[in-house]
């Protein structure tokens, strides 16, 4: 898995059925990438639902978060609507898992992204990365700590 000081590989992925997002377009902004196994995991402990509540804390650090899984753009759209999410979920769908693999965050056996977090600075360099077990939601504290440490 990519680590601190590695250059974050660029990507262009669908966020909605008619919108693509590139990491390169985010230069000048801090970026949080949250790779996760799949949409539709159990409700009250859902990682994306949690980040949906912590966006304002990320914004304080001029950081934008993207969720990434191998689910399709249509699946992401339904999940986003169902959970009232206010940030983009990216579809690492075709070729399947290519970006997850580039970040070293792909589980070959399960055929899905690992639960991995990356904080990328305004120059596109990884400042912090973390992987947690598939069934364990890592929360937001590690991300916030990484963002704070960057600005020191």
């Amino acid at each position, binding site marked *: 898995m990519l680590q601190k000081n590695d250059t974050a590989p660029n990507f262009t992925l669908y966020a909605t059925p008619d919108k693509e997002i590139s990491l390169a377009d985010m230069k000048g902004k801090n970026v949080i990438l949250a790779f996760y196994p799949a949409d539709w995991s159990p409700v009250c402990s859902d990682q994306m639902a949690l980040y949906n509540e*912590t966006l304002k*804390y990320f914004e304080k650090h001029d950081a934008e978060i993207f969720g990434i899984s191998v689910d399709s753009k249509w699946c992401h759209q339904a999940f986003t609507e169902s959970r009232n999410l206010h940030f983009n979920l990216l579809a690492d769908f075709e070729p399947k898992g290519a970006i997850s693999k580039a970040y070293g965050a792909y589980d070959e056996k399960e055929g899905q992204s690992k639960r991995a977090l990356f904080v990328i600075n305004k120059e596109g360099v990884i400042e912090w990365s973390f992987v947690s077990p598939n069934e364990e939601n890592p929360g937001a504290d590690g991300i916030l700590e990484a963002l704070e440490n960057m600005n020191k």
Partner: protein
Amino acid sequence: MSLHPEVNKKDHIKGDSSANLEIVEFGDFQCGHCGAAHPVVEKIIKQFGNQVTFVFRNFPLSEMHENARGAAKAAEAAAIQGKYWEMHNSIFENQENLQSNDFIAHAEKLGLDIDKFKNDMELTSIAEKIDTDFESGIRSGVNGTPSFFVNGNKFDGDAANLLAVIEGSVA
């Protein structure tokens, strides 16, 4: 993962505040798992009340649960009239009814000054208390609700696991 900040005088505390066992729950009044945990927590307090300090901090997932924040405001407004836990219990025991008229009905049953209750629900200080609670949860590594902390450390389990551990440790 440990609790930040520690239990302090802004918290709602139930049980014996000098007890050896301190349990902090981060919860959401609209979360079904929190509703399910409620009677178990009540059982813990009832059985071990003299050995346990119980604290509840708000962790409303407002985007997913549209009435969670309103419910937290109602409980905090009742606290101003000294009836925090009574309102807390009324809300969890009637979790399918979380509209503002439901909170007012609870307040009437509890004998609160209704005008004051309604005004207090909109206080900035209450909004800030809920935000402070939420932020303390984020800082402490809360990743969903309910999350429990025992003596300042995140507890890896649900209310039933907690009851079992307490039964084991104080038996």
